[in-house]
């Protein structure tokens, strides 16, 4: 601390905003220098999750039942070791005196726990049956569908997409990020971006020390993001083949995680390109088909965005840029 009394800024609000901007610059520099590698941040999260109870890690019922079984028996014979010589004698005496009472209570508790455990095993068996039946009728999640001619750094839509999120009010998520080329472009334009891609092998091969890329599904990732925790989201190659339910879930999750004023950018191919003979095989394997640009604008407009579509020069693709204009209640009941 300096000896001289610091002067108060003339406009405190502007001063705090300036400090926040400087902090954002500092973070970008730190990340670029590799002082806090993104991989390390992920490991910190995973370390905490390892301590959370079973349900907090996604609900492995089998593991939970094993824990219930292990905890079902309550031992009424308490340990009597003591650091003091007389302590063990006193404890042993108390144990002998109270064992008839404690034993009676613990016997009932053990019986009660055993009954609960048996009921849970029955539930587990029936759930297993149900899961097998549901699996037969399951609609698979959409795969990432990338068209080599359209998903490339020199494509027409890259500049407008980067411009839409470079000044976003917070971190920018790109999905599906692949090896992170768009993340790098957004960072270079002054944004603070990171990427998510369910194709973990692509992420593993990327420059993970420099770029913050995560090999996980975008819906799974968004569940772990705080409400209003993102300034921007760029979706490329992941919405085209989604079915209606999956798309609605994704857009709902994004709406709650985007800060007011945040931008959502969607790059999608046209139906002609999707149906063309040269389309990637993943297009055929996807449960849905691409929406038209006007439909995207209508969909996002109804969800509180101001959306604008920009068609690609060859009619094969389009870009929708949307700004979140209203606040959505975080975590609607359907997500609880």
């Amino acid at each position, binding site marked *: 601390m300096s000896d001289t009394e610091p*002067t108060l800024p003339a406009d405190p609000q502007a001063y705090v905003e300036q400090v926040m901007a400087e902090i954002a610059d500092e973070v970008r520099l730190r990340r670029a220098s590799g002082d806090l590698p993104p991989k390390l*941040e992920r490991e910190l*999260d995973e370390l905490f999750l390892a301590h959370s109870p079973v349900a907090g890690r996604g609900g492995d019922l089998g593991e939970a039942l094993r824990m219930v079984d292990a905890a079902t028996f309550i031992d009424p014979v308490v340990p009597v070791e003591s650091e003091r010589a007389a302590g063990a004698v006193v404890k042993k005496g108390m144990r002998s005196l109270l064992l008839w009472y404690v034993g009676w209570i613990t016997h009932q508790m053990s019986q009660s726990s055993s009954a609960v455990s048996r009921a849970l095993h029955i539930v587990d068996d029936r759930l297993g049956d149900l899961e097998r039946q549901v699996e037969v009728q399951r609609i698979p999640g959409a795969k990432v569908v990338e068209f080599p001619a359209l998903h490339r750094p020199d494509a027409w839509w890259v500049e407008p997409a980067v411009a839409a999120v470079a000044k976003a009010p917070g971190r920018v998520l790109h999905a599906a990020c692949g090896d992170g080329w768009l993340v790098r472009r957004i960072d270079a334009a002054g944004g603070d971006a990171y990427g998510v891609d369910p194709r973990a092998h692509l992420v593993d091969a990327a420059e993970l020390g420099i770029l913050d890329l995560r090999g996980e599904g975008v819906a799974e990732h968004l569940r772990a993001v705080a409400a209003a925790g993102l300034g921007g989201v760029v979706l490329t190659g992941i919405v085209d083949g989604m079915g209606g339910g999956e798309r609605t879930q994704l857009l709902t999750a994004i709406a709650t995680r985007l800060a007011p004023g945040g931008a959502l950018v969607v790059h999608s191919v046209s139906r002609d390109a999707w149906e063309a003979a040269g389309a990637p095989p993943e297009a055929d394997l996807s449960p849905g088909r691409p929406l038209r640009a006007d439909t995207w604008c209508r969909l996002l407009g109804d969800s509180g965005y101001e959306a604008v579509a920009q068609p690609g020069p060859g009619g094969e693709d389009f870009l929708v840029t949307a700004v979140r204009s209203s606040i959505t209640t975080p975590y609607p009941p359907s997500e609880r």
Partner: protein
Amino acid sequence: MAVHQFIPALNPHDATGTHTLKLRDALRAAGWRSEIFAEAIHDDLASQAYKHWMYPEHAAEGDVAIYQFTTSSAVAGYLAEQGLPLILDFHDFTAPEYFAGWEPRSVQRAAAAGEELALLAPQAVLGMAKSPFSERQLRRAGCRRTVVVPVLADYGRVTGAPDRRVAAELAALGERGGADILFVGRIVPSKAQHDLVKALWAYRRLYDARARLHLVGGTSSFEYAKALQGYVDDLGLAAAVRITGEVSDAALAAHFAAADVYLSLSAHEGFGVPLVEAMVAGVPVVTRGAGAVAETVSGAALVLAAADPAYIAAALHRACTDDRLRTALVAAGRRRAAELSGGAAAAPLVDAVAGAVAR
């Protein structure tokens, strides 16, 4: 005529307990008869309140009920049956999703609180919220008339005489060097103390290897508290993170006096009394802007969009080392705290109650 208050649990050293007692005094000073009825009453306050089912012994024509809505309680159903003109004094409650995977009982209780709010809000003649954030929640629940009023807190407790033993202990730690980062609040998932630990880890790695984190407050989520302790141990921070449990007012004052910065990364706050206490105590505040936090600090803190450890570490570094920023934050904090804790803080509540009673 009487304006009585009902509350799920009346506890000392508790924000809603203090608020309820102060409001009772203000209502009496304004000329109303006023008693407190609660489902649970702490032994220390046994002479200050009655059990809620004892209300009929005190009932009179024209009674008005104020319900201090804090959590799920049998009092909600009881009040719904009484048919009294009802004022909801809403303190917000933590939504069930924050407990999911941690405390099944808390999930049920929070869900029940939501149902009780939906039951009472449409019946209320007035809803009093502690922040515009909470006011929106009241309106969504069906409250037709709402107003934002201050929390009647005992902010002076953080500038009172500090506990000597605790102050000496903290001073000894301070002599080792490194920043002292403080958070005050129950150890529960919604307060996200694990994010505070993560931020400390990043801050120590990037800026100040001797920094310490002081987590002051009891817990009602033992699974979360156990996980937090395990996380602290795994990160090798056992000597750098002090988890104090509940403390006396004097010990709390000692912690605020020793703190270099107050850091809150709560995922949900309906108001955030400790944020105001930090501003009263002249401690710069760095906080995540969740829930009503941004409204409570109103520009007098560094407000971050998310609990990103790199951002938080950088913000802590500025708040701890930039004298100009510290001076600006402390001055702005004191101004904001004065707005929220002025001597006439009870007046808007009494006026709001009078307005509702008159209709």
